[in-house]
Each structure stands twice: as C-alpha cells, then as structure tokens.
C-alpha cells in the first residue's frame, strides 16, 4: 500500500517532464533505423544463412540491448541522487516507510517506465510478421532476456545513484560499470582460455545473447536474478549507511 503510493509518486515525477517522451522517441528512432539497415544487410549479404534467426539475435543484443544500456543511466541517475541533492530524501526517511519499501518503489517505477521502451520495440517483429508470418515462441525468450537485462541495469544504476549526490557522477559511473559487464569478454585473445570461461560467466552480453537465440536456460536466468539481487542488497546497505555516517 505505502509502496504503491510511492510508485505512483515516482511515476508522476517521470511523466511531469519531457524526459520520458524525448528518450522513448530517440530510442525508437535509433532502433528503428538499425532495424531497417540491419535487416537490409542480412537480406542483401546473408547468403546461405538462416537470415531471420541470425538477424533477431543480432538485433536484440547489439541494438535493443546496447541502446538500453546507454539510456538506462539517464533514468537511474536521478533515483536517489536527486532526492539527496534536493533534500527530499529526508522526508522519505522520516515518513513511516521502510528503506526496503523506498528502494522497491524506485526500482519498480523505473522498470515500469522502461516497459514502455520494450513495448515500443514490439513493432519490429510485427512488421516482419505482417510480411512473412513466423513462429513467435522464441520471442518469449528474447523479451524475457531483454526484461532481465533491463532490470539488471536498473538495479546497478539504482545502487550507484545511492552512493552520490551528483547525477553526472551517478550516470557516468553507471554507464562505465554496465559497459564493463557488457564488453568483458569481447577481446577473447587477451586472456587465457581458463580466465575466459570464468569471465564469460560474468558477462551480461553472453547471458543476454543466449536468451536472444530464443533459449531460456536456467543458468542465464539465475545469473540475472543474482545480479539484480546483489545490487538491490548493496543499495539497501548504502541507504542504511546514514545511520552511522549521519549524512543523507
């Protein structure tokens, strides 16, 4: 009940300004352009490949996933940092709200806003389906993967936002952290194969890729759930630090 009230307040703040509309618009413009050009190049140059399958895994990870990674810090940076800079966090901390309720509301509200982004991308499979119908079941895995990846990015951003009062610091640190988890296995030649196995277990890119192929693997599911749980736990600890640091 109190958490719901807080979620409604968060959503009211998001939609009070133009930020959501502008960024959703820019995101759909960028992914739409990449949808057109990538599909075009697969059709033109993808001789002998299962064009559609390769296209979708490429499109989900390299375009939808990567653009989300860029956009998420813009939204998570304000979550706690702005409340601290404004001083409104003092209100929340002295209202009858548990820290966990404040954190949950902020996390869920941000996730709800990003569902708009994902909902917007449904138009791409719909276009292809209209031209050439296909079996839609792999998209359950693709969207589940995108959702979990998104939730992981938000959890990470929420944690970073709880560490600072500066939104610029929050967004840039979140971006760097998310990018690090994304590209950690990209230069396969730079590390020995035993390290590579360990590193690939940490990579958001590799786990998301597995979903994008249309497969739901318990291993990948567990990875994202643990990733989210870890950062939410750290956020809670960071919020509680006011008890001994004395700062908001």
């Amino acid at each position, binding site marked *: *009940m*109190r958490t*719901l*009230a*807080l979620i*409604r*307040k968060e959503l*009211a*703040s998001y939609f*009070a*300004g133009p930020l959501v509309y502008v960024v959703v618009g820019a995101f759909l413009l960028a992914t739409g352009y990449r949808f057109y050009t990538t599909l075009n190049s697969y059709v033109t140059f993808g001789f002998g490949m299962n064009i559609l399958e390769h296209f979708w895994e490429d499109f989900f990870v390299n375009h939808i996933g990567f653009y989300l990674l860029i956009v998420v810090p813009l939204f998570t940076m304000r979550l706690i940092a702005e409340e601290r800079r*404004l*001083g*409104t966090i*003092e*209100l929340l*901390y*002295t*209202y*009858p*709200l*548990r820290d966990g309720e404040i954190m949950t509301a902020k996390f869920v509200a941000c996730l709800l806003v990003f569902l708009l982004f994902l909902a917007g991308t449904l138009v791409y499979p719909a276009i292809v389906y209209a031209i050439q119908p296909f079996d839609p079941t792999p998209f359950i895995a693709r969207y589940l993967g995108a959702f979990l990846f998104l939730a992981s990015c938000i959890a990470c951003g929420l944690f970073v936002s709880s560490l600072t009062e500066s939104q610029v610091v929050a967004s840039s640190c979140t971006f760097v952290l998310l990018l690090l988890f994304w590209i950690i296995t990209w230069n396969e030649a730079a590390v020995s194969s035993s390290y590579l196995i360990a590193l690939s277990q940490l990579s958001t890119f590799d786990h998301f890729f597995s979903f994008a192929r249309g497969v739901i693997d318990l291993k990948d599911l567990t990875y994202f759930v643990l990733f989210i749980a870890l950062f939410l736990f750290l956020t809670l600890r960071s919020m509680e630090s*006011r*008890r001994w*640091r*004395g*700062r*908001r």
Partner: protein
Amino acid sequence: MIDVQGLVKDFGTTRAVNGVDFSVRPGEIMGLLGPNGSGKTTIMRVLTGFFPPSDGRVTIDGLDVEEHSLAVRERIGYLPENVVLYPDLTVRRFLTFCAEVKGIPAAQRRGRLDEVMTACGLTEVAGKLIGKLSKGYRQRVGIAQAVIHHPKVLVLDEPTVGLDPRQIVDIRTLIKSLGGSTTILLSTHILPEVSMTCERVIIIDYGRIIAEDTAEGLTRRLQGSHETRARIAGPREPILRMLDGLPGLDDVREEPTTDGIVTIVLRSSLGDETRRTLADHVVHNGWGLLEVRPLPMSLEDLFVRLVRSERETPA
C-alpha cells in the same frame, strides 16, 4: 510526550550532540534555540527517526525511536530545515502522496486534504507545481505535509527562515493555533521568535544544553541588558566628562552623528541605576535628554553571558 535522556550523536570523530536531556509535556510548544551548527538539526533528526542516537534513550509517546521507528514516525510530523519539496509535483499530488504514505484511509483522504489545504491557505495553488511556488507557499506546503495525518508530535526545524515579515507572522499564527492539541518542538536561531511562540525554551551550544527556561524567564533575561543608548542635546565635551563620573560604567562608545546631537552607547553592570543617574545629570545641567533606551540583547550577547555564567558556576 517527548522524552530525551543522555542523547549523544557522533559522526565519525565529531560529537554533534553531547549528552542532552529534556522532556516536552503533551500539548506544549517547546523552543530549541541555538546558533547554526549547535546540534539542533541533529537532535531533531534523531527524534524523527532519520538516524538513531549513538547513545542515550529517546522516546516519543512512550515508544523508543530506535526500536519502534515506524510507529514513532507515524506519530510525528516533521518540517525539515530549508524545506525543499518535489518541484515537479503539484501541491495536490504531493499532499495526496503524503496522505497515502502516512496511512490516512482512502475514504477520509479527500476530506482531510481539503481541510489541511484550507488551514494552510493552499487552496488557490492546489494545481500548481511546487517548483513554481514562492518560498512562503512552499513553507506552507511543508507545514501541510507535516500536519496532514494529525500527528501527536510536530517537529519544525527553523520554520520561518527565509520568509518575509508578513509570511513569518502567518506561519507563527498557524503554529500557535496547533499548540494545545499537538506537542510541538521548534528550532530557531532568532531570539524573539521563541518568546513569541514557545512556552519553554532550551538553549543549546556545541551540542550541550546551556540553559532551560520559560518564555517569560527568557524575556526577563533579555530585558536585563546592560547596554543603553542615549541621545543628548548639549555641548560634547562636558557631556563626555559627565559620563565618566557615572556609577558602574564599564564602557562608553560614541556614535558618529550628522545633526550635532551627542549619541552614545553605554555599557554598565548596574543597568537601571546607571540610566537614572544619567537622566538626573542631564536634567541638572540643563541639557536636552532626547533618548535613553536599553538595547535589546542579541543572541550573541545572551550566549556570551550564559557561557560565562556557566563557567563561573560549574555544574
């Protein structure tokens, strides 16, 4: 209603509050007076459950602020210092959120919202964004969010700071109207404010209580100023010579004037006695006595005196 015993709050190696004891009876308006950085806000943040005390025991309505943090926060309304509210919400949206979070049942919410907005004079700005409001209105929204759930205890941190004189009067009237039914703890660094609104006053400095008094007691202390300003029409040299002969005089300061009237500020340990003798002398010499006025004591003077008297009589 509020009971504070041996409150200590450390931040790292800094001790912000050092062993504070006081209690506030139900329905009383208590003032917390002290210069900036004396620990007022820290005390209030402990009371409101923002952070726990490092040592000591604080209870509100019989409930320990640390053990029953949520229950305590339900009973408290808090106006933080320099209230900054959510600038991108409208007044009505924000107060609705407060009502929901503070557990006002949905059926009563609307009525209570209208009631509190009327009481705080917010009805005409209900649909405006808080960020677009003037400072006075924002302060009223701050008070509205604090009182919306009929809290038993109201904690107000510097409620009139940064307001113009008219708004200050409005806010003081509003606070006084709440007293009696609500227990109020109010902090300020403005001396006259406490005597105008509070029944009892605690004066703190460097995280310790240096005096506790009733509003009348404080007013009496303030009037017992030893500085007097006098304006005398007459020849300058003889007047200054006369002043040297006054009893109990510690210091004489002449203020520059353009109208040729001798203006002086005297400091003396005898107060009224000095002023009477001064008047006698002026009349006796046939000069014109235009003004004799005891100067009101500033917070700084009061502190200097309280700190000095405490050193002379160690507790």
